[in-house]
């Protein structure tokens, strides 16, 4: 995927993608643990369970950093989260215009599909970036493996195919 297209995708998604932080003393950067994204316009965010494990181990607060720099305290929606599938749902008190809604029927994904992901990454000093790759495996349960993950911080990202499907 060329850089122009990556930039377009990033511009489109940057306000929906959030930084997940569990700091010991309100320093969002020091507490950076991964990425999340809005699944509703009224403040529900999906991320990876392992990004918030410090909440249970140390009792750290969950802070959600938005692209414009605003930071909100997050509340774990434990009954909506599934630890075994590494899924966590966080609620913040914030309204946004757009979100990436969860679909009941996810379009079929195939091995070799080109995918793109916009996420915060430790590789880029915890800043937002756009990564591309492909689906390397689809198993019988439609779980996918991909090479779009390239380092810490990306966990909790949303992934899209070039055909605008949400994977």
């Amino acid at each position, binding site marked *: 995927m060329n850089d122009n297209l990556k930039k377009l995708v990033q511009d489109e998604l940057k306000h929906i993608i959030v930084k997940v932080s569990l*700091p*010991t003393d309100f320093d969002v950067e020091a507490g950076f643990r991964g990425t999340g994204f809005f699944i509703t316009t009224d403040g529900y965010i999906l991320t990876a369970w392992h990004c918030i494990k410090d909440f249970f181990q140390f009792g750290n607060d969950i802070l959600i950093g938005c692209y414009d720099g605003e930071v909100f305290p997050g509340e774990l929606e434990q009954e909506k989260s599934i630890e*075994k599938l590494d899924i966590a749902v966080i609620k913040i008190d914030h309204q946004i215009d757009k979100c990436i809604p969860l679909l009941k029927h996810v379009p079929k994904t195939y091995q070799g599909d080109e995918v793109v992901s916009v996420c915060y990454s430790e590789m880029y000093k915890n800043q937002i970036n756009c990564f591309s790759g492909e689906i390397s495996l689809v198993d019988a349960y439609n779980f996918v493996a991909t090479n779009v993950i390239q380092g810490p911080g990306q966990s909790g990202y949303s992934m899209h195919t070039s055909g605008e499907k949400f994977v």
Partner: protein
Amino acid sequence: MNSKNRQLQIENYLSNEDKLYQDWYTGLFETSEEAQHTTEVGVIPDRDELKKLFEKWFNNQKENLKKLCVDYDYCQKRQQQEQQPFLVAAVADGLATVTGGIPLNVAAVATILVAGKFLDRLCDCPKKEG
């Protein structure tokens, strides 16, 4: 892990504080089901943040760790033991018992507890002579 390997690991930790704290942190989550899939992509906080997290962990575990003062007579061991790696190894042996089933990298925890003087303060040990 045999005692020689543990001794080497402790010496390595004493000379590499970054690795020490990183191994302590990752050791806390090693038994969780998803750990094997997330270790490589999970963010490990920087050293300053890890030190603050350790303080929190230490405060939560104080009651368990106090057993090292009494049951293992930490202050006396510290007086007798000239070489820090051997003192750390003795504490590591004790830790495995007093912390029960908590997932831990005992070598890392023992190194931090001794080198960071956490146990000196917790056990209220007298200042070392000489």
